[in-house]
């Protein structure tokens, strides 16, 4: 395990380096000029040149990348072109909202997946509900987000449609408002934070859950035809016990891999969902940074997402190994 973790840590460093280099290369092919975005369209070329010099944008890409690596090794991700603040500070400001959303949507996705599995196992009466779930999960994320907002916020007024919290005076210690509310002895803050989380988390969780369930259903279908399942049936075990004890465990590898994949897709979906729901997280920060070609900010978010993804991949691989001992780490 230690060797595996050490290998993966080295892999993480290499992946982040390659990814950051790709983002740097993108800068040389995209037409956007951060200096122009910063100084405005009317600024004369002399001003643009000054800004480019200040941010080192006139240096060759390789030199800029070298400077970036030196800065990163000292924990400095540079300064955002758009906010003029250190990118590290910006990331710390936006990260808790995104992590809280990812966490809640993952929990929700698992809950939905479990419910769907139960529906799948419960027979023909659940077909309509099953198809509704699948239709919702297959809807493009932007439509799903808008639909959820329209129905549950605008039409029914059951849940808030944007923002993170209605208590404007509240300042949390961790940045995770659900936890902060409890820590501060204000459960109403936690409830409100959960209410605000529900729709964006639902938009992220639905496609996630459906994909995992589809994968699990396929695997389970094959596993339930294996000889050892017939043996278990022959031994008089109940169908539920067979599925839970032998079926799901042996079928877990593919859905676990799908979970890792879905978490990667989740980062892309975050950009859409956070924009639709005005969720002040890294997705919104990234979207706004694209418009101003704010490379340091884009790079910073990419590094965070890349790190989270690799950590999730490690967790998934460990889980796969635990579920199926044939898979070695």
């Amino acid at each position, binding site marked *: 395990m230690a060797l595996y973790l050490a290998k993966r840590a080295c892999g993480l460093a290499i992946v982040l380096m390659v990814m950051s280099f790709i983002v740097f290369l993108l800068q040389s092919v*995209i*037409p*956007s*000029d951060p200096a*122009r*975005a*910063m*100084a*405005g*369209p*009317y*600024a*004369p*070329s*002399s*001003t*643009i040149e*000054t*800004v480019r010099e*200040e941010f080192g944008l006139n240096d060759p890409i390789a030199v800029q990348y070298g400077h970036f690596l030196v800065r990163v090794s000292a924990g400095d991700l540079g300064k955002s072109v*758009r*906010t*003029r*603040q250190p990118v590290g500070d*910006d990331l710390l*400001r*936006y990260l808790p*909202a995104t992590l809280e959303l990812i966490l809640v949507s993952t929990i929700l996705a698992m809950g939905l997946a479990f419910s769907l599995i139960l529906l799948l196992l419960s027979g023909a009466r659940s077909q309509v509900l099953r198809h509704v779930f699948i239709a919702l999960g297959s809807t493009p994320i932007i439509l799903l987000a*808008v639909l959820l*907002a*329209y129905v549950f*916020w*605008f039409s029914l*007024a059951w849940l808030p*449609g*944007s*923002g*993170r919290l209605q208590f*404007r005076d509240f300042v949390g210690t961790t940045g995770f408002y659900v936890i902060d509310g409890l820590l501060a002895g204000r459960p109403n803050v936690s409830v409100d934070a959960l209410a605000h989380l529900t729709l964006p988390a639902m938009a992220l969780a639905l496609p996630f859950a459906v994909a995992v369930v589809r994968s699990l259903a396929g695997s389970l279908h094959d596993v339930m035809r294996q000889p050892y399942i017939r043996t278990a049936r022959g031994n008089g075990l109940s169908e539920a016990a067979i599925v839970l004890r032998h079926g799901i465990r042996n079928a877990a590898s593919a859905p676990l891999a799908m979970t890792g994949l879905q978490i990667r897709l989740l980062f892309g979906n975050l950009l859409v969902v956070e*924009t*639709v*729901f*005005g969720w*002040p*997280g890294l997705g*919104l*920060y990234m*979207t*706004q940074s*694209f*418009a*101003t*070609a704010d490379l340091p900010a884009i790079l910073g978010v990419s590094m965070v997402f890349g790190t989270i993804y690799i950590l999730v991949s490690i967790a998934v691989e460990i889980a796969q190994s635990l579920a199926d001992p044939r898979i070695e780490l």
Partner: protein
Amino acid sequence: MQANPSDVVGRAARFRLGVFLVGLLMALLALAMPAYAEEILRIPYAIDIGTFDPDNGFEVDGIGAVNNVYEGLVEYAPGSTQIVGLLAKRWEISNDGLSYTFHLEDGVKFHDGTALTAQAVVGSFKRRRDGGLVLSYMLGNAADISAPDDATVVIRLKQPQPSFLDALASAWGPKVISPVALTEHDKSDKATNWLGEHAVGTGPFKLAEFKRGERYVLERNADYWGERPYFDKIEIPVVPDIGQQILKLKAGELDVVPTNFSFAQLSHLPAELEVTAVPSMTQYALFIKPRSPLDNPEIRRAILSAINPSLWVKDVFGPYAELSKSAYQNLMLDPADPIEYPSDIDAAKAAIAKLGDVNVVMGLHSTKATYARISDRLIVQLAQIGVKATAHVLPPGAAFALKGDPNAPDALLTIASPDAAHPENQARAFFTKDAPLNFYGSSLPGADAIVDVAGTKTDVAERNALYEKAGRLYVDAGHVIPLVDVKDVVVHAKGLTDLGLRPAFPLGNIDFATVRWAR
């Protein structure tokens, strides 16, 4: 036991007195309630404010908030392009046009309680000019900025610039920042870091909360030297999605959708909403690539016949736009000889048929729906005369990289609006050889020479005639095709009035100092 009649009378009197006092108290409370109820305006921003530093960022949506916290020497009067005093109550311009003397208002205080002095103005203006900040160019022609006394500021220019007052009145013009704040927070960075998220100006509102990605809150400056604003507080949530903004307005969670409301939806708004539309400096125009098919005057004439805006302006904008009369916005310059589009479609068809296949590729400056609606109409119109036109949205920032690009589209559909309401700003921004927004780098030395002369004239009629002449040359040479001037359209809850929209400001920039509910 029988009650004493005098006790009964006393109890009754006390009861009546009690009822009277309770009634009086309730009446007083009722009277007092409106006075103490906080008036809050809720207006969304689609994108975050990058920086609140008035000298170091080019904010578009957020400039309204910046301009309600900071003030400059002069401003455009709401609803017009007339320049009026703000922190300067009056000013004089020397006969040689080089020296501007401003006399400051009395009794002005910064939000930190310190008094406005001429030295503070000098300090702020020098910070902008010399601090390496991105908006320094607006004071680039200022040779010297001085304060002969506490209430007078003198700016001496390097060369005459009749548009200088417009530069000062521009939405991005120089503002005055508290010298105490500048000194306290200068970490060898001209306080740019601190001023990115904090503010100490003299304006009618103070920056009370700056929470990126979530909201900004402005609170009324109780010690404001000018007229007291109606609203106590301005809440500005960040709502990136226009669909969400509209739903929130309809749900009563917002009072205004300042920009980007679909023109198609304006004619059937719910009864509780209304539109305020005023003329603006937003001119949609086509900039033409040199050596494109449109370089051929015959093709250009045919194309002009087909894309004649009078054929589609109502379809796209309803009553909220008018035909552009020149290369300048109609509000900025009313030309003596307005542009007239040819209208002989048959002749256009014949010309194109004679020339063979004509293909035109249009680049759209942004993903904004209006660009697509205009380009759709243009494509259909051009198809009628046999021109095959296509359009695609350019990636962000790509419009600024078209110069010398052989793969650039034949024409760029963009909004040509200057940073101030002076024809000099329009010509120098879009048309002259080194103009930053001369997208294709076109050059017409004869027209540029006329702009040079016009830029020295103080007589408005004389200067306008020269700018019009130069503008006509740019149009006739096929550098630009002005299309339509579009109004600034704000959708808001019924009863909101005095929005204070300024034509030379970016769209939807409500003046929080003037806006109020009509009672």
